[in-house]
């Protein structure tokens, strides 16, 4: 994956999937439709202002609540290149990998990076650089098994290859 560079958008702790994509929009699974309402109940202006390549910096337990895969789909389709948080809710964590949304765990980066900072990320090494403050952080390494899934091109590509063997 190429290096990511974008502006930081800060959110608090326990951002739930209803805040990420409210259920009133779940009567479709079209990514572009979902993107229009991304983060709406946490910040109603976000979807209109976020730029491709931007980065969400959130508090602990990001993506708690429902199993809706619409949540990582909406974030990715809104152009967000990466979500950084100290921890992610379990189902959201799996869903992000399965939908190809990059997520990184780092308590230090989540606490230190300020709203609007310019952030550069090397997905391969997990290096997070705050270009505005000049500080850098290392994300917790992605578990080996999940790295394998990513290398295979995602869960379905992994199974497709395995079923063909």
């Amino acid at each position, binding site marked *: 994956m190429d290096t990511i560079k974008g502006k930081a958008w800060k959110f608090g702790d*326990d951002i*739930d999937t*209803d*805040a990420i994509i*409210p*259920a*009133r929009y*779940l*009567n*479709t*699974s079209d990514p572009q439709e979902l993107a229009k309402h991304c983060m*709406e*109940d*946490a910040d*109603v202006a976000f979807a209109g202002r976020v730029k491709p390549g931007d980065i969400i910096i959130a508090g*602990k*337990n990001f993506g*708690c*609540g*429902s*199993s*809706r*895969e*619409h949540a*990582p*789909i909406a974030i990715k389709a809104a152009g967000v290149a990466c979500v950084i948080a100290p*921890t992610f*809710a*379990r*189902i959201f964590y*799996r*869903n992000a990998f*399965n*939908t190809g949304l990059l997520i990184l765990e780092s308590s230090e980066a989540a606490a230190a990076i300020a709203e609007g900072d310019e952030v550069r990320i090397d997905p391969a090494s997990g290096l997070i650089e705050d270009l505005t403050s000049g500080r850098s952080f290392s994300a917790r390494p992605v*578990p080996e*098994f999940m790295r394998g899934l990513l290398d295979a091109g*995602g*869960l*379905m590509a992994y*199974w*497709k290859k395995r*079923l063909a063997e």
Partner: protein
Amino acid sequence: MAQTITEKILAFHAGLDRVEPGQLIEARVDIALANDVTAPIAIAEFEKLGVETVFDRGRVLLIPDHFTPNKDIKSAEQAKILREFVQKHELENYFEIGRVGIEHVLLPEQGLVVPGDLVVGADSHTCTYGALGAFATGVGSTDLAAAVATGRVWFKVPESIKVVYRGRPGPWVEGKDLILYTIGQLTVDGALYQALEFTGEAIAELPMYGRMSMANMAIEAGAKNGIIAPDETTLDYVRPRARRDYTVFASDPDAAYVRTIEIDVSRIRPQVSFPPLPDKARTVDEAAAAGIAVDQVVIGSCTNGRIEDFRLAAKILKGRKAAPYLRLMIIPGTQEVYRQMVREGLVEIFLDAEALVSPPTCGPCLGGHMGILAAGERAVATTNRNFVGRMGHPESEVYLSNPAVAAASAVLGRIATPEEVVGEEGK
């Protein structure tokens, strides 16, 4: 070496003698479940795989319960994708409007989930089936699609937290109150990635509907699963319903837990969880003293949509009416619950109370339809989440409670204790 019930069920389905927390396993799935919101994405992912059909026509369950009866054209299209997939692959168990209910009330009732099962569902409240002694957990649509195609799923074996409930519950204290209290203690991520095992003498005395309320909300503490080892209460419930053989697992006495929490239930009052998170639990007395006016009361959902929940509400509502301008909604979890409500005269009591009795649906719980809140409105609901905007406008509020507290609040038009309505004569 000793193992927990969660470890034993995972090991059994992975074809291993034993597993340890942190171990990655690939496990065999007994039931793969999705609903009308999550199935369309799962079906699209399934099609990408290019397999001919599902892993087992009897073990894939697609339940149209969220936005049904179809709330708008887009929802109708989603439900149609689900229905056409069921027909194309000739799935053995399908429940159309008129037979369908809220998935996590319907499946145990129909004996489609049994003790010892490994269940994955594209719905976070799939953890409800832990009440039957099954390992059940929510997954996203893509994980579900892989399970539907292959009958297999990968897991990291979770550590287990043991919660021991001692003592006898006081008046109007339900399984719902035990779990709201527990989430208040643990917080919304206190069991993140972990298994929550509920045990102790108060659980042994707890009926199945209360156990299902508890396992249902394990996810609200971030848990991977909630589980209660089967006992005679479980087997009395399962025996007349089970459509398959089942296996009873139990934790070894010396199994390892990452943490043990002891709770004296005799000290717990009915709980009310304040917005915007399920862990903001306070006693009903504290909530009632705050004089919180209520616009809507919802009694139902996968947490509290079983016949016993409505009997409890009826005890409070019999001979009384919902407060002026308050909207009281009764939502039976399944058609069977609805039928039983009619047989027992509960529907008559609810109609006399000027409640709306709705068909089974997830509806208002997730702000889908059938009772959406306007800005500034407040609801007391027996549902499981009170996030910002959960039941409608982002400036509306949801307070979570058991059915008796919800019914009492409907009568008085503000958050109220059951005792305020029926006096101190108890249940």
